[in-house]
């Protein structure tokens, strides 16, 4: 394993039998799993190159059990890794050898649907898609739609601040959650926010969202639901050059149009997708844009016309406009199947997730081409073009010695390039273990210390999901010290009253 995880605590491992027994006292029956065979499914999440059996798996089904498990672990100094559906692409739910894996899979109930306040109160193990399905009969849906939405849990979405193809217009998870019940590592149960648009006091919901399971374990979530747009239509536009496609994206935004979704694929991605799903993608273009407009029919019709004019002005070589739901879905089919499609043409692939300023796209793609030659590995690019979120898929074969390491080094270089171009390491997949050691590319030690101090406010012993997000662990006492700089007043003229 290329990524170092915190050293195992032998004293904890030596007490394993007693710990398992104590956990059985809290969560009865099959809720505690300690046999190697039965723990196998929990060894890994969506970042499958990394595996680690946990010390024990616990599957509570009440908030009180979660609280007691955490309180026990806190008192005993035992690490805990929370897990939803295990679809994280950054290793956020990778277990620790000396840690309890706390699965929230039994929290599967939607507790309340409140159409008047336009919210759903749900347990964290409910899948993203199930929320939309539960309110579809009244024309509502839950807007963030990560591509794993059939499987990923809403608790995991909150932990990772998940996005999706519609987040340019409708926001990420953080823009669509209002409140939660959270259990701190101490076992304390807190309610944050609720059905109101804003929390009182500091925006704790905002900081919990996207904290990658390091601050607390969420046992209930209140999400906003929206009315489904009346119609959606899509354009599929091909370009002979990536630069022209990038220009088209900039001009659409510049014209004040915020599409429901705006996706770009490069030639290798187009070919892989077309071979897989036969969506009718043009094969002689360098870049393909799928642009979806949603809203009232008259609005969509007019905006489709405006986007068509812009695309032609940017020199599009092919342009199709969907005339039916079936056709719109076909346009999307290739894009939505891009990852498995690439999986067909390569034994393994790594999916990267940097964000860049949209305008830097041609530069970024040129750099990725050069790196592809340097590392002698193929790459296919899919891109949430509307919000600058790039997903290069690096093709490799794990059975060839050294190839996975080469792929990882290639990926790290792509992310460094994103930061250099004014972007960030991760747009929606999270840091986890995957990008943990790249954090200093983007943040100074001072920046990271401030983030870790916040962690200390929630979990002073650092027992919850350690080894994720932060490249270096510090003790809270050390982080909390204030250094008095000299004591000389730099601004002695400061007014005092």
């Amino acid at each position, binding site marked *: 394993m290329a990524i170092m995880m915190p050293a195992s605590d032998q004293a904890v491992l030596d007490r394993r039998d007693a710990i398992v027994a104590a956990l059985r006292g809290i969560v009865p029956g099959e809720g505690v799993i300690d046999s190697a065979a039965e723990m196998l499914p929990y060894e890994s999440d969506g970042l499958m190159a990394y595996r680690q059996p946990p010390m024990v798996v616990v599957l509570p089904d009440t908030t009180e059990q979660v609280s007691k498990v955490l309180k026990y672990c806190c008192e005993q100094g035992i690490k805990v890794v929370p897990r939803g559906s295990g679809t994280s692409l950054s290793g956020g739910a990778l277990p620790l050898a000396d840690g309890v894996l706390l699965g929230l899979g039994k929290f599967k109930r939607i507790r309340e649907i*409140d159409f008047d306040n336009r919210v759903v109160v749900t347990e964290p193990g409910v899948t993203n898609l199930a929320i939309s399905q539960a309110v579809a009969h009244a024309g509502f849906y839950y807007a963030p739609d990560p591509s794993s939405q059939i499987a990923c849990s809403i608790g995991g979405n909150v932990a990772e601040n998940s996005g999706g193809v519609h987040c340019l217009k409708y926001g990420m998870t953080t823009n669509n959650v209002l409140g939660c019940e959270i259990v701190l590592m101490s076992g304390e149960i*807190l309610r944050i926010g609720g059905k109101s648009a*804003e929390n009182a006091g500091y925006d704790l919901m905002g900081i919990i969202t996207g904290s990658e399971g390091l601050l607390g374990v969420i046992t209930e979530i209140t999400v906003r639901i929206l009315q489904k747009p009346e119609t959606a239509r899509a354009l599929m536009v091909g370009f002979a050059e990536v630069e022209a496609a990038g220009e088209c994206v900039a001009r659409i935004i510049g014209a004040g149009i915020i599409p429901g979704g705006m996706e770009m694929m490069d030639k290798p991605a187009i070919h892989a997708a077309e071979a897989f799903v036969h969506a009718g993608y043009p094969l002689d273009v360098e870049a393909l844009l799928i642009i979806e407009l949603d809203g009232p029919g008259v609005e969509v019709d007019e905006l489709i016309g405006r986007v068509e004019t812009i695309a032609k002005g940017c020199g599009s070589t092919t342009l199709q406009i969907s005339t039916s739901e079936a056709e719109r879905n076909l346009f999307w089919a290739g894009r939505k199947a891009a990852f498995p499609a690439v999986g067909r043409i390569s034994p393994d692939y790594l999916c990267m997730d940097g964000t860049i300023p949209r305008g830097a796209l041609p530069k970024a793609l040129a750099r990725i081409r050069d790196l592809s030659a340097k590392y002698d590995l193929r790459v296919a690019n899919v891109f949430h073009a509307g919000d600058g979120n790039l997903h290069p898929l690096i093709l490799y074969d794990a059975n060839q010695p050294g190839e996975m390491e080469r792929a990882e080094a290639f990926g790290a270089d792509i992310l460094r390039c994103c930061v250099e171009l004014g972007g960030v390491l991760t747009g929606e997949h999270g840091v986890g273990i995957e990008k943990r050691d790249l954090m200093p590319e983007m943040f100074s030690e001072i920046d990271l210390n401030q983030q870790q101090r916040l962690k200390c406010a929630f979990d002073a012993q650092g027992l919850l999901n350690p080894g994720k997000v932060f490249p270096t662990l510090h003790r809270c006492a050390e982080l909390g010290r204030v250094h008095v700089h000299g004591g000389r007043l730099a601004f002695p003229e400061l007014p005092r009253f």
Partner: protein
Amino acid sequence: MDTPRVRDAKDVEQVVRAAIASEQPLEIIGHGSRRLVGQPMATNAVLELSALNAVTAYEPNELIITVQAGAPLADVLSLIDSKDQQFAFEPMDTSALLGVSGAGTIGGMIGAGLAGPRRIRAGGARDHLLGAHAVSGFGDSFKTGGKVVKNVTGYDLCKLLAGSWGTLAVMTEVTLKVMPKPESERTLVLRGLDDVTANRAMTAALGSPYDVSGAAHLPHQAFRSAAGGLAGLGAPGQATTLLRLEGIAASAADRAGSLGKTLAPFGTVEVLQDAVSAAIWSSIRDVLPFAAQGALGAWPVWRIVCPPASGGALGQQLSRDTGGDVIYDWGGGLIWAALPPRPDAHAALLRARVDAAGGHAMLVRASELVRRNVDVFHPQSGGVAALSERVRASFDPKNILNRGRLLRAVAT
């Protein structure tokens, strides 16, 4: 007395470090337009940021602007307006309500985090702050977030900075999301509804697919000091319920027709357009019926945030119990209440009602004496209050920044 002219983040670090060394709590101000908000502070020195006023970068096609915290909000708004863009959360201008001049700075806008009518559709200040450079109470300049609209790298400290009233860190530069301005707008007007019925009408509109971007209700009393754009509503003495639709003209017109049908059970619908409509919504955003220069200028003003469908009943009850006036925004989820003066500004009664409705309330306007005696910000439950204090201390352990502004216990 002179105020140090801080020119950059380094200067701010120096001032904060000096304050730590001499244990002098600092009051952080931009233009000082919201100094009257909060508990009276236990600070005895001022850190003024108005010289940090540069626009670092404005990239309309990337939908972002990076600007120093002391930049005047009005200037930044007119800059982005020149590219037909806006802050979609409609930041409130508190000057009329507080009786001061000027809309303040970008840093103040984020620190206060007061969003206008479009919050129901576009989110609040916290949803539009993408990145920040700030100096913590450790005296260190740190950055968080980024300069792109989609980012999950590290903890999102921006969320905490927005609405923290300067108690966590001194922001020096922020990157904000900007969005295209709608090409046109329509406002549907219903007359004569009581608060609870109006709340139902707004709930019906917000539960429709017509993308309503403003839902407000003005009981008839709100017109007794009708100010600014509300004059365009005519027919004083009648309660008025307002629903806004924005977008390209064809779409706004089409949806106005559809929404009108949805609202038919609530009465006859009039439709107002563009400039008239815009003036009404900025009056609501800035709570002009309760302006300091108006008839209710001496009354304390509360800002209540609650589950939207319970707003009508809550506001009506408060109004009856206290003899005060209320206006509703956010489909009932935001209630502005101006209550007849009392030493406690009706805090006990109001908070009991608000708690029962699952909301929270902040005393936005009151005399210094009243603010000394009342919890300006909504008291939180034990565990959440303790966590909030640990969060605050993780940024500012010596309590140097705006000490006591949020918590009465610390101020006294």
